[in-house]
C-alpha cells in the first residue's frame, strides 16, 4: 500500500466519522470509545509485529483510566490528564516490560495476563483507594481551559480522540517502517541474528512494549473521560482479550486496521446487544471465526487487497 493511498484513506475515514457523528449524535460516544480502543490496539500491533501477543494489555488501559480518575479532582484539565496518563502507563510499561521481554510466545502472553490480573484484584480489593467494584466517577474536566457544556464536551472528546488516533496511527506507521520496527519483525523470524548484528532483541521489544503501554494509557484516559466512570472491569482479562480480538478483526498489516477493527467491534456490539441481547457474544465469536478462516489479514487486509487489485488493473 502506497503511503499516499493510506493517508488519503485515513483522512476520508476521519471525515466520514465526523459526518456520521453529526448525523447520528448517539454515535459520538461509540465512536470515541472505538477510537480509544483503536489507539490501544495500535500498541498491540507493534508487539504482534514481533510475533508476541499480550493477553494483558488492558492493564495499561485501566492504569490510564484510573490515572484520570485519581488526578481529575486535582487537575481537571483534559490536556494535562492525557499526558499524565500516558506517562504513568509508560512508566508502568517500563517496569513490567523489563520483566516480560525476557519471555516469548505463550509465556509472554500469559505473564502479561497474570500481571494484569494482579492489577485487577488490587483495584477491586483496595476499596479505600479505588472504591472497589463501584468504581470512581470522573467529573468532566476542562478542555484547553474551557469548561464545556455536556454536548460540546462530548464533541471535544471525539475530536481529541480523532486527533490522537491520527497522530498515533501515523507514528506507528513510520515506526514499523524504521529500523526499530523492522527489527521487531526480525524478532519474529530470526532473533539470534539480531544478537549477532550487535542488537539487543530485548531492548527492541522493550521499546515497543513501552510505546504500547503509552498508547494503552492514552486510550484509557480517553475512555475514562468519555465514560466518566472507571471500574476494575477495565483491567479484567476479558478487556485484554477484547483488544486482541480487535487486532485480529481489523488486521495487523497496517495502522488503519486497529481502527477499522475497533469501529466494527463497537458497532456490532452496540447493535447486537440491543437487538439480540442474549446472543451478541455468539455473533462476535462467529465474526471472529469467519475472519480467521476467510480473511486472515482482517478487515484491513480485505480492503487493501481490493484497492491493490483495482490499482493493479488501472496500471
Amino acid at each position: 500500500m502506497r503511503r499516499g493511498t493510506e493517508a488519503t484513506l485515513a483522512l476520508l475515514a476521519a471525515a466520514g466519522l465526523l459526518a456520521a457523528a453529526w448525523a447520528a449524535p448517539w454515535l459520538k460516544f461509540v465512536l470515541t470509545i472505538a477510537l480509544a480502543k483503536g489507539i490501544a490496539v495500535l500498541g498491540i500491533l507493534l508487539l504482534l509485529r514481533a510475533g508476541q501477543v499480550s493477553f494483558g494489555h488492558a492493564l495499561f488501559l485501566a492504569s490510564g483510566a484510573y490515572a484520570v480518575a485519581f488526578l481529575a479532582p486535582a487537575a481537571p484539565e483534559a490536556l494535562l490528564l492525557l499526558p499524565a496518563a500516558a506517562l504513568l502507563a509508560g512508566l508502568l510499561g517500563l517496569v513490567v516490560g523489563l520483566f516480560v521481554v525476557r519471555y516469548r510466545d505463550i509465556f509472554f502472553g500469559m505473564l502479561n495476563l497474570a500481571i494484569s490480573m494482579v492489577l485487577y484484584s488490587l483495584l477491586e480489593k483496595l476499596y479505600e483507594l479505588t472504591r472497589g467494584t463501584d468504581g470512581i466517577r470522573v467529573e468532566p474536566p476542562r478542555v484547553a481551559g474551557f469548561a464545556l457544556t455536556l454536548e460540546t464536551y462530548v464533541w471535544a472528546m471525539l475530536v481529541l480522540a480523532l486527533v490522537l488516533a491520527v497522530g498515533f496511527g501515523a507514528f506507528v506507521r513510520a515506526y514499523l517502517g524504521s529500523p526499530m520496527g523492522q527489527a521487531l519483525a526480525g524478532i519474529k523470524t530470526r532473533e539470534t541474528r539480531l544478537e549477532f548484528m550487535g542488537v539487543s532483541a530485548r531492548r527492541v521489544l522493550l521499546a515497543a512494549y513501552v510505546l504500547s503501554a503509552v498508547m494503552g494509557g492514552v486510550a484509557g484516559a480517553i475512555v475514562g473521560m468519555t465514560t466518566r466512570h472507571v471500574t476494575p472491569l477495565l483491567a479484567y482479562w476479558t478487556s485484554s482479550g477484547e483488544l486482541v480480538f480487535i487486532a485480529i478483526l481489523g488486521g495487523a498489516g497496517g495502522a488503519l486496521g486497529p481502527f477499522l477493527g475497533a469501529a466494527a467491534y463497537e458497532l456490532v456490539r452496540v447493535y447486537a446487544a440491543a437487538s439480540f441481547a442474549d446472543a451478541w457474544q455468539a455473533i462476535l465469536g462467529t465474526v471472529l471465526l469467519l475472519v480467521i478462516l476467510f480473511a486472515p489479514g482482517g478487515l484491513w487486509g480485505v480492503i487493501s487487497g481490493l484497492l491493490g487489485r483495482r490499482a493493479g488493473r488501472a496500471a
Partner: protein
Amino acid sequence: MSGALLEARGLRLAFGGVKAADGIDLDVLRGEFLAIIGPNGAGKTTFLNMTTGYLRPQAGTIAYEGESILGLAPRAIVRRGIGRSFQLPQLFTEHTVLENIALAIAAREGLWSPLAPLLRHRWREEAMEILGRFGLAALAEARADALNEGARKLTDIAMAVALNPRLLLMDEPTSGVAAAEKMAIVETLVRVLREAGVTAVFVEHDMDVVERFADRVAVWSQGRIAALGPPGQVLSDPAVQREVIGIERHA
C-alpha cells in the same frame, strides 16, 4: 602488538561425554585466511560458537586484540569487530534481501531512529553496493525465504560483511552452493574480504577451495587441532589425508 588478532588458549567444552573442544590453542594472524577442516562432529562449529560468545567454554581463554572476550554476549563481541556467518543461513525470512542488508547496516550504525525509514537513501545505496560486490544485486527485491541455498549463503555472509568486521568467522560458506558456481563465488568472496582488509576464518569441506584460498589450514579432530600450517604442507600429510580428507577429496 603481536601478529595475532585472536588468541585462543586451552579451550575446553564437553556436551555430556562428547568433548567438542578438548584443549584448543590457536592464534589467528592479522590479515590471514585460515581454513578449518575436519570430519563431521569434530568441533569446528563449536569453536566458532565459543569465539562469538554463543557458547561459553568450560575452561580456557579467548583474547581479541589482546583483550579477553570471554563471557561477553554475542552482541558485545560483534560490536568489537568479530562478525559471523552461519552453517545454516540466519536470514530475516519475511524481509527482502535488500532489507536484510539494510538492517545490518542500521544495526552497525546503532542508529535506531524510530521514524526514519529503513530503506532511506543512504542505507539503500550502501546495501545495493554491498549486494553488487557479492553479485546479488539482481536479487535485491527477492524475499529471503525464496532464495536458493547458494544465494542464501551469500546473503548471510553479506549481512556479516555489512557490519564491517575486522575478523569474520564463516561456517561452511560454500556448502549447498552448486559445484559449478562454487569457485566463482569463493573468488568473489575472497576479493571482497581482501579489499576490505578483513581477517577470515572459514570452515570448509572442499579441499580445492582450501588449497586455493587459505593461507593456513587447521585440522580439527575430536575437539583437538591435529595439524596446523600452510595448505601445501598440511594437505599432503599422509595422516591428515587418511583421517580427514580421504573420504572427502573425491566428493
